[in-house]
């Protein structure tokens, strides 16, 4: 199932035309550590994120996922894999699309081994972002 952001976004003054990136929820320490261990893979997943955002800027939908490296993990969480890296460590960059607000939230990075734990952590962050949006929406409706 794909989450099209919260209803609150419809009334939000934050609604904009261009997609933007937010990484407030991500752990910088884990990104720095992963990048140190796997610099090529980290660069590749961010390069693929750039392709996703370029695709979205042209107004096309994210569902069904247009790229092979973009997979849904359920509940609105997606992962971006590395491409074009020889003998690569399977890497996943976890993101959440807040479609109405047009914000891509970068949530985490990890490999196949830490996948289960990473997904659980990121789903927690998705829940937090959605409830925050809901709260903002409710206060906008009251105003």
């Amino acid at each position, binding site marked *: 199932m794909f989450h099209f952001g919260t209803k609150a976004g419809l009334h939000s003054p934050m609604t904009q035309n261009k997609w933007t990136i937010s990484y407030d929820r991500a752990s910088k320490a884990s*990104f720095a550590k992963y990048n140190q261990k796997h610099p090529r893979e980290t660069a590749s997943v961010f390069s693929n994120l750039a392709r996703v955002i370029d695709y979205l800027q042209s107004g096309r939908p994210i569902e069904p996922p*247009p790229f092979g490296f973009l997979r849904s993990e359920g509940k609105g969480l997606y992962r971006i894999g590395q491409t074009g890296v020889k003998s690569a460590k399977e890497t996943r960059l976890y993101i959440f699309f807040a479609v109405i607000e047009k914000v891509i939230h970068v949530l985490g990075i990890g490999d196949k081994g830490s996948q289960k734990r990473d997904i659980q952590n990121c789903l927690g962050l998705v829940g937090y972002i959605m409830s925050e949006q809901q709260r903002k929406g409710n206060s906008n409706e009251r105003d």
Partner: protein
Amino acid sequence: MSAINESVASAAVALTGDSAIVERMETCRRRTLLVSALTEMRLQAGLPQAQVAERMGCTASKVSKLEAACDADVRWGDIAAYSNAVDCSMSILFDEKELPAAARIKQHVFAIRDLLDSLADIAEHVNGDKEITGKIHQFYGEVLLNFALNFDGSYQKLVPYVKVEPDDCENSESHADSARRKNLESPAAATV
């Protein structure tokens, strides 16, 4: 194809604390220009990987692998089959490294002329069908307008470096006037 999206590059640097990541991202982008272009062709055609695979006579997994590969690892046969599956024709341009820009421009101008001729041929084949010839006629006008606008954009970059003598100025003005007259007389200009 454009360079790496700035906001993504900033996010990558901020999260990893490594400014060198931008160069590595750019390397990734350069290594996959061809496969990115192929994928974009598929998306423009509105085809899922599975359908492209069916048309290519291979598995969806192979298409997925092709789109995830480096340009250097993709086989010509696969590129040709993929292009065909997404309803695109493929042409190869061998460009001499030493060839000056002026000669390259000439090649492209001739290529554009050939394509415009092929449009005129279509008009001939449809026996002057009003709707089709009307659209071709309109398109000729659009091509002329786009060319003029883009030419002007490039020309303005050149202007600061050109020292114009009064005589040259008179000559160039007369050339421009005659070109303008010719354009106004042409049917394409009428739609612009």
